């Protein structure tokens, strides 16, 4: 009796906690509301399944508890019941998977008008690169990294000469314009993570990875590293400032290009 009651309380308590908990996701600042919606669908389906399973278990504990004269029912199999339950589960799984895959296909299809920018991780600092007036990022190579060329840009590549290099400053982005974030690491794995944007991806030394999003509201957002990168992992912080187009352009004018840095 007490056991059944406690199990019911565990189920009810979990649901109550879910609704009353002050801990919930950060207000979204990107185009990925679809991800939040898929998460909500998943919460509903799994929440119902959890309460049903624990509730049924508690009822069985109460109803079929051992009493004198009680005898269990002998029934090795029940095909119809098993098939019915399998089909119901498959439908529930499909109801989560279908929207999940649909949103994923958007997540991996970068729009053609997305601006390419670059985030570079190293222990334990973020750097950024924006394309110059040509709108193109130049090539780079880890072997070219030096004190005067911290991101390893190729000095012979004309596309790279007007690239804006931001070392250890804030990343600024204009609101409402899709960006494809190219990710590079020069020492170990890192992961550029801004909770409000929902999207994130590891950066791997030796490869260039990416994700895309559109900032949807202005503000300053804290970026963290989400992939263990050594003892400084927790202090690898940065800031992303999302601004209106005019503010952004004003900021951009004050930044230095690779050519200017190299001429130092």
């Amino acid at each position, binding site marked *: 009796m007490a056991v059944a009651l406690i199990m019911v309380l565990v189920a009810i308590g979990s649901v109550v906690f879910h609704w009353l908990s002050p801990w919930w996701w950060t207000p979204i600042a990107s185009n990925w509301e679809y991800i939040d919606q898929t*998460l909500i669908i998943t919460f509903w389906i799994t929440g119902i399944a959890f309460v049903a399973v624990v509730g*049924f278990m508690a009822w069985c504990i109460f109803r079929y508890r051992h009493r004198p004269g009680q005898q269990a*029912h002998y029934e090795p199999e029940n095909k119809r019941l098993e098939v019915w339950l399998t089909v119901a*589960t498959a439908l529930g*799984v499909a109801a989560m998977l279908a929207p999940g895959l649909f949103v994923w296909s958007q997540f991996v299809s970068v729009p053609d008008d997305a601006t390419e920018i670059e985030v570079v991780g190293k*222990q334990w600092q973020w750097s950024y690169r924006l394309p110059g007036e040509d709108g193109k990022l130049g090539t780079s190579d880890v072997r070219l990294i030096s004190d005067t060329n911290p991101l390893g840009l190729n000095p012979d590549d004309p596309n790279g000469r007007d690239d804006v290099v931001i070392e250890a400053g804030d990343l600024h982005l204009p609101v409402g314009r899709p960006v494809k974030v190219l990710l590079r690491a020069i020492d170990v794995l890192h992961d550029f993570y801004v909770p409000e944007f929902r999207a994130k991806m590891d950066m791997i030394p*030796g490869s260039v990875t990416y994700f895309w999003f559109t900032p949807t509201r202005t503000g300053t957002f804290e970026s963290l590293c989400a992939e263990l990168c050594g003892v400084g992992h927790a202090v690898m912080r940065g800031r992303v400032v999302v601004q209106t187009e005019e503010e952004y352009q004003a900021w951009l004018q004050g930044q230095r290009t690779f050519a200017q840095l190299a001429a130092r």
Partner: protein
Amino acid sequence: MGDVAHTAGTAVPHDDIDGAELYHPHSWLTKYVFSQDAKVIGVQYALTAIAIGMVALVLSWLMRLQLGFPGTFDFIDPAAYYQFITMHGMIMVVYLLTALFLGGFGNYLIPLMLGARDMVFPYVNMLSYWIYLLAVLVLVASFFAPGGPTGAGWTLYPPQAILSGTPGGQDWGIILMLLSLCLFIIGFTMGGLNYTVTVLQARTRGMTLMRMPLTIWGIFTATVMALLAFPALFVGAVMMLLDRLLGTSFFMPALVEMGQQLSYGGGSPILFQHLFWFFGHPEVYIVALPAFGIVSDLIATHARRNIFGYRMMVWAIVIIGALSFIVWAHHMYVSGMHPWFGFFFATTTLIIAIPTAIKVYNWLLTLWRGNIHLNLPMLFALGFIVTFVNGGLTGLFLGNVVVDVPLSDTMFVVAHFHMVMGVAPVMVIYGALYHWYPKVTGRMLDDMMGKIHFWVTFLGAYLIFFPMHYLGLLGVPRRYHDIGQTSFVPDSAHTLNAFISVVALVVGAAQLLFLFNLFWSLRRGKEAGPNPWNATTLEWQTPETPPGHGNWGRELPVVYRWAYDYSVPGAARDFTPQNEPPPAAAP
């Protein structure tokens, strides 16, 4: 024994000694230390696993002290914290759960439940334990090595695992960890071949595969999986050792560390991740399948009801085992692998939910219309169902690729895997220990201590890990020794962290009560008799309790029925042992 085919005319002297005399050990050393008896080896495995598990428990306390009260304990700096999480994770997953389920329960139960005298290769079986012990000692040695143990996280991702920014990366830590893993895998392979061949070849007369208890199905399938999955970790470990010691570049691309160009070049960090998770995901089920099997038997026995849908249960175990080899990259959705992989791995991952759900339904339907005795093993089985269902359902968040993107690498993941492969299998381990302790020792574990242990552990663990999901939802990353001042983390999250830490200390203390019970009941526990739970399976029908060397006296048992004849209509008792002949055949 001693039967040899003679060729005529060759004089072969008769054995002077009876074969049985050669079979049984004669000294204390060969009986209890260098024993070839699977039961003794099983107990050795279990005690070693529990001992190293206590280290992992203390490490979890230290981590929680840091997370709950950051800055209070000077000796826990970031390096120490990363060493604690790494060793805690590796010990729990490999050296405790895998070793205890397969080496501990596998050794003790496989021969007994199948009506065999022992494992088929007893000497190799003995070696398996001693190599496991050596692996544990090498692992422990890293605590005392220069630079301390590795702090690379239990996933040991290169390049950071072997670079100087990570504790133990350029010292002994990572080397000892990789060596220890290699030793573990060698030792496990010796044991694993034994379990597999014993199940296939040494079952007694009448014990068909489809009459085996689900415990054996779970352990058997998990063993086969482990034999296929561990080699991937083995090669990964060897290659990383070569990268670290000889300067090869299997996993190391050209990189610049702290402004220094290193001589590595051309390797792939992500290749290691594929190798690791090709092992790592089956590993989840290597732990889960024995737990599934054991909990099925606990529920059937203590609900006095046949397991519901036995054939479906067997097929579910086998299908889960097979599918678990094609879902590994769901650990890598945000690793930077080709994004199209996401479609495939999300689909396979969610498909696995179906056979898993069937298992949950069948446990519930076994309780339904049962005659439920709320003994300690049953309580732990119920605790398992709640925590496993909870952890399994949050797996549907993380498995569904796009939902994983915001949640990966946050505390949501930590909460999920602790619930599903930490708390849930540990519940089964405890249930199993309360269930089989009377067979191993002849005495019952104390009931009062057991009840306190259960409620504190079950409710406490739930209070620790359920709210933790919401920290992850908020965006708190995992593997942070201190979240510090972060714009989106409110003060209330720090309060929650402190609460979780206090509960964790209490839950840890309850495990000490269990340890005390384990030793106290050895002498003071109630006499158990041969079959205290009125169970049907063969291990409860041995002529002696605890069973002697060779298990069965002079004659092996003969099996006439499946393992779940509980409450058969018309039978005199509410259980019919597997070796009880049908009425017509009785003399």
